[in-house]
């Protein structure tokens, strides 16, 4: 049984076709990387999974239940699918601790004490314990992104979506964030990752999907995809990446 399944998902922005009947299924504990040029629809696809973007056509299932199902309510889906963004999107007016406890307290009805204890524990786990009282702007990009990971993991989600989480980081800070992802993979987290870090995709992905023009043109295990891409366009894309020194 796939953990996440997308069936013929189609999305328009105005008259612009962004996703063209995309099928994708992600097994439990699987890590799927979506690659492709900007504008290929990979971020939109990712955001369709947790309904940040509402698909125009097609169905999305979480454990075989449609994500539009009433049983999820407003909160259930977001409790089970976490997302981390490119630009961290921490709440700048709240401390790290308040960033982490906002949803548990206001959405999931936990007590302040309980939520803060859990947040502190998670922060310690990610080596961020001493920043609990800091504001996001006082942290480096890498530290902010780590807090964003902790925030997404606070609800113990079944699936984690990562939307170019290293793209806004200075090169020397990329490593610490990639380290977190590897650790999460080792713990068996199911992840869908949009990334431009091809080397990383090769390392961490169980499967790589190449998107272009709103369709998955080619998918496969990373070794095959990066060494012997079948599709001409995949080859062209990877050649450009190699030329830019990113692989």
């Amino acid at each position: 049984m796939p953990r996440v399944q997308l069936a013929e998902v189609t999305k328009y922005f105005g008259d612009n076709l962004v996703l063209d009947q995309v099928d994708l299924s992600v097994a439990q504990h699987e890590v799927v990387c979506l690659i492709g040029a900007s504008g290929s629809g990979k971020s939109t696809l990712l955001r369709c999974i947790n309904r940040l973007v509402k698909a125009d056509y097609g169905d999305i299932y979480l454990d075989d239940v449609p994500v539009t199902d009433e049983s999820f309510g407003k909160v259930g889906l977001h409790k089970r699918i976490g997302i981390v963004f490119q630009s961290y999107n921490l709440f700048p007016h709240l401390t790290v601790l308040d960033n982490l406890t906002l949803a548990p307290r206001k959405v999931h009805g936990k007590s302040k004490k309980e939520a803060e204890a859990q947040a502190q524990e998670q922060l310690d786990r990610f080596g961020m314990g001493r920043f609990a009282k800091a504001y996001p702007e006082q942290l480096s990009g890498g530290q902010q992104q780590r807090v964003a990971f902790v925030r997404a993991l606070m609800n113990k989600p079944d699936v984690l979506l990562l939307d170019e989480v290293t793209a806004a980081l200075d090169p020397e800070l990329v490593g610490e964030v990639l380290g977190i992802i590897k650790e999460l993979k080792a713990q068996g987290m199911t992840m869908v990752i949009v990334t431009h870090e091809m080397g990383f995709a090769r390392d961490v992905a169980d499967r790589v999907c190449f998107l272009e023009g709103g369709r998955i043109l080619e998918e496969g295990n990373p070794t095959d995809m990066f060494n012997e891409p079948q599709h001409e366009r995949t080859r062209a894309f990877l050649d450009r990446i190699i030329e830019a020194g990113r692989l």
Partner: protein
Amino acid sequence: MSHTNLPDQGSAGGATRRPPPPPPGRNHDWREALAPSLISLLSLLSIILVFGALAWVITSAEQWPRIKLQFFNVDAMIAAFPRVLQGFWINMRIWLIVLACILILGIALAVIRSLRAPWFAPFRLMVILYIDLFRGLPVLLLVLLFGFGIPALNLPGLPSSSLFWGAVAMVLSYSAYVCEIYRSGIDAVHEGQWAAAKSLGLTEWQTMIYTILPQAVRNVMPAMMNIVVALQKDVALLSIIGVRDAVREAQIYTASTFNYSSLIVAAGLFLLATIPMARLADYITRRDRARRLQIGG
């Protein structure tokens, strides 16, 4: 980025390469240490000079004795002062109450106008109509209409004081502006904040209250201070409907003595109140700018 980066001299220099010494006497240069106070002293001197000259020209004019008698008559000022001050106290109280109402009503309207859920559409439309109406009418007209008009209706169960309805008119008019200021602050909050809050399961309402509004309020503080200062003196508009504020009291004195010194007293009181507020507004704007630069850098 630091401004003190030296041009790259390459790493080939090895152990013998040493940085040049710091520029001489940067911290202990008495000229630099004195410069700020010297500049302030100079500005102060030039202000005294300019205004002194102006004062001299005016006071040496042929008509000066008459002007002095009419506008700067010390006896008249002293005589009018207690009543004008009493009126000014009313100004300040109205200002604070009206201000509180405006800030609350304005934020409520802005929130209604900014929520995106479809079933909010009729409310949004109503707010837009409200803003168009009250921003399009002169405050003075509204004060007259409400302050004289509504009490004249003798509506049962409603207050019949002109002061009350005049204040309501000010609240309604100013809230339309304040709503738009808040809304610009809400719009300025990055779209990613909505996405992040939504992805955490917050409802649109919770997103607004816990994440968007606090940032919006911080965004608009400088603009809002401007409104606060403007309102502080616009409260005097209520004198037109007979509220015995500072301006009204001064006018009463003028009417009985044909001497305008009482108005000058009122003017002095207003300046005494608004200038510190203006400086406070400057301070908040500066602090806000510093904060933005810090984040930007």
